[in-house]
């Protein structure tokens, strides 16, 4: 009989303790970010999709060695390059990133020995068409420079 009543009272007490916690939380400040109105700055190491890095003249650093192409686990990257007459190095003529397959692992950036690609800070990528995620990075670099 005693256990019956003490059970009721301890149970009731635990309910009041819980309500005390939520009461205190009610008067604490909010902690959320109102997303479309406020945004957070992405951290320095944030892994977005990749972008080409340009040298001082605005030309890509890439030497078309193909390391990133090989490193990519999902074969998202397709490179095209040619060796102009008399030049020592190959010149990049097309850098195609299929972002629909990319899983943002970062192997490409890690494998690059020429400081030619970096992560962008972009995370607001949305579209209703698949084609919008086939990036021509060389064109994007030109657009950025101009």
């Amino acid at each position, binding site marked *: 009989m005693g256990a019956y009543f003490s059970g009721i009272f*301890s*149970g*009731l007490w*635990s*309910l009041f*303790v*819980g309500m005390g*916690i*939520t009461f205190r*939380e009610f008067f604490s400040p909010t*902690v959320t970010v109102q997303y479309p109105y406020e945004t957070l700055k992405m*951290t*320095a*190491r*944030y*892994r977005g999709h990749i972008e080409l890095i340009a040298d001082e003249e605005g030309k890509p650093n890439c030497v078309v060695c193909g390391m990133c192409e090989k*490193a*990519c*686990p999902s074969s998202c990257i397709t490179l095209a390059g040619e060796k102009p007459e008399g030049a020592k190095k190959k010149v990049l003529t097309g850098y195609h990133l299929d972002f629909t397959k990319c*899983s*943002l*692992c*970062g*192997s490409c950036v*890690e494998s690059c020995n020429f400081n030619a690609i970096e*992560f962008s800070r972009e995370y607001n990528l949305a579209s209703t068409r698949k084609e919008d995620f086939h990036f021509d990075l060389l064109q994007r670099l030109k657009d950025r420079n101009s």
Partner: protein
Amino acid sequence: MSAPIRIRPDETFTLNVGPQHPATHGVLRVKMEMDGEYIVNAETVIGYIHRMHEKMGELKTYPQFLMNLSRMDYLGALGYSHGHVLLIEKAAGIEVPERAEYIRAITVELNRIASHLFWFGAFVMDLGGFSPLMYALQDREYILDMLEAVTGSRLTYSYYRFGGLYNDVDDDFIAAARRFIPRMRTSMKKYHKLVTGNIIFKKRLEGIAPLSPEIIRKYGATGAVARGSGINFDVRKNEPYSVYPEFDFDIPVFHECDSLARYKVRMAEIEQSLRIIEQGLDKLPGGPIMPEKKKPIKIAPGDYYQAVETARGSFGIRLVSDGGKTPYRLKLRSPTYSNMHLFDESCRGMLIMDALAFMGSLDLVIPEIDR
């Protein structure tokens, strides 16, 4: 709970719980044969999110497959990556700098806390309490911010490399981790007051779904599910790996075997993980995080195995190599696969409410079961 009262044993109906159902947390389907609210028989159906990770392991080179491991279990990804890198390092004979190994242990434990916090919130939400989930997410967010600053990603970290780490932790991370420990301890007190002590919560879990040690052994369940049934098994202590022997921590074991015991094990594990992080930050040595020379990975023909303790239990990874660029066979032993299959046998005769609370206490992550 007494045995179910069979009113019309010949009149049962089939209830499909899932693949889209709020209680299954993903695309798990449970085919239940019901007698009223009592479960006569249940059958779990998996395979809705199978992605052939094991086959991918055979087709991709070792560094290419490294990224897949963080995509198996999206809540505790680092533990799985840890198993993989340890295996390859053992097989290829790569020395790991001490600093890298310490950072791995710290980040794995942080990730374990994050995973347990999310489980805690989702579990209480399964029972109908919504606010604890939000409080748990606030603390988890702190961990994710910390790990994002270091690894560059919030869930699919891909942070470990064969021989070391992708990049070093900075002072900000260490300061944030030190700030996190007291914060989390305060939060734990709040959770215990709000949830653990709550009479409704206790009544819902006490004595529900007792799992005997025999059934645990029969199905090979590990992790908190086994430790809630009095089986003292934790890979970190039983088959020590990495720098875990250097740390002083306990393995929480409860003998009640019910859902509340499994809950208590995970909550106690959060506190133990905090102890490990604290010691790891104190002992963190300087030095490089990758070996001096980067060698291409060559694995001699043979059979290799490595087990690690992830947030969900013992994760085993077995590699059979024929000396080529890709493995001959890669087998992933996922802990929840074994933990989940208990459900079919154990839930017979339970009310659907209790069965779904029991399922929550198993901490299932469906992509990890299906791989």
